């Protein structure tokens, strides 16, 4: 906690107490590595982690700490490589797959991110946020048809909950598909868009009337049957 807000006094007081109680513990050593990272002493941290991993290559915490360290240093390519290596051994670590997906997204490597997200989805089949994220990645890659399918799936597992991101995503995907005439049948996109639009408006009516006009105008500019407003940039794609 002290490291999170970076209060040097809290960190040193508590770390010294832990070290006093458990001088030979590996956990203490890993904590020390984290403290060093907080202080920016990456070389020393790396030494400690290397030593731990030489002794015990399956130490999950040390491995993850190393990935975190690489991220802190901005060595993103190496962080990605290290996390890939970790996942080859620990394939069921859903959290790690998600972390790797985010790293790939950050690097603009959407295809690789998609691969990782698929593993997350396998593990967590009722998480609407993950399905929306997957749909977002598909949309970013230009696969609007798959994006639309996954937005719909996300919405289908989230009935009764406000899933605004998926609703907007759905309207956007339908809009692009309709405007570029990329999907058949076309009437379905129009109907899906209208359903999405109505649902969004219903949510804003109950939660935040101040933004209602803005949202209505924004959705109107996306309307598949009103291709002149706001979507000229999409047509150029």
């Amino acid at each position, binding site marked *: 906690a002290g490291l999170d807000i970076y209060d040097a006094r809290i960190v040193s007081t508590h770390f010294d107490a832990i070290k006093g109680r458990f001088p030979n513990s590996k956990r203490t050593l890993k904590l020390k590595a984290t403290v060093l990272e907080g202080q920016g002493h990456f070389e020393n941290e790396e030494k400690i982690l290397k030593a731990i991993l030489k002794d015990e290559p399956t130490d999950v915490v040390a491995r993850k700490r190393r990935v975190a360290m690489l991220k802190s240093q901005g060595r993103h390519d190496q962080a990605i490589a290290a996390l890939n290596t970790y996942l080859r051994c620990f394939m069921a670590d859903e959290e790690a797959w998600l972390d790797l997906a985010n790293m790939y997204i950050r690097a603009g490597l959407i295809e690789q991110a998609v691969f990782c997200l698929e593993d997350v989805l396998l593990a967590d089949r009722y998480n609407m946020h993950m399905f929306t994220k997957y749909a*977002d990645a598909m949309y970013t890659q230009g696969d609007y048809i798959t994006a639309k399918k996954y937005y719909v799936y996300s919405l289908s597992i989230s009935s009764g909950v406000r899933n605004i991101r998926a609703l907007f*995503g759905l309207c956007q995907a339908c809009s692009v598909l309709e405007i570029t005439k990329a999907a058949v049948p076309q009437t379905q996109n129009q109907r899906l868009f209208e359903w999405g639009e109505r649902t969004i408006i219903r949510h804003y009516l109950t939660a*935040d009337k101040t933004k209602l006009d803005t949202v209505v105008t*924004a959705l109107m500019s*996306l309307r598949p049957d009103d291709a002149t407003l706001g979507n000229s940039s999409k047509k150029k794609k």
Partner: protein
Amino acid sequence: ERMAPGAGRGLDLGPAAALKALLHCAAHPWAACGGLLLGSGGSARDAVPLFHSPGALALSPGLEAALCQVEAYARSKGDGTTIVGYYQANARPEDRELGGAAHKIGERLVQNCGGAVALLLDAKQFKSMMEEESPGGQVPFVAFTPEGGRLRVDPGFGLTLQDAGTNKLVKEYLMEKKERAIVDFDDHLDDISKDWLNPDFDP
């Protein structure tokens, strides 16, 4: 393509714009975050914080939804308000590059608004400013403008604060930890009752 320095190329940041942008960056110190600047005629009157999650800036749909709505809002004001710029803070203070998302936004701004500036927070300058007893009138951002199809550092771009007391106000808010109440588009999508216009932060 680029005008000569001093040929009227600059952005004057109004108190609401600077306050919201800086507090947004301060509210998410461990993440990259970004937002839009609204105004007209070389001055930014307001800021709309957009995102602070790692994926949001790099994935298109959220970004497009936000741009769409902010543009609709700007038009609805009917006073010529448009998006005049984009600000960003990186997760690591040593990171002096704008990522791909900034370029996407920059492209859109140039298309729709005929001019674009991306401001990257200089975290070290911001930190030392806030540590001063009485912060002055510096603007802790580095300006990037389009040149040859890319956003490049533009040292000749004039960044000014409309109100000399803006940084003092930012410091006051930070001391009261008010930055935690700043709402960005990310927060809004999670809970639409939260207002990305942040009316409580209009000085």
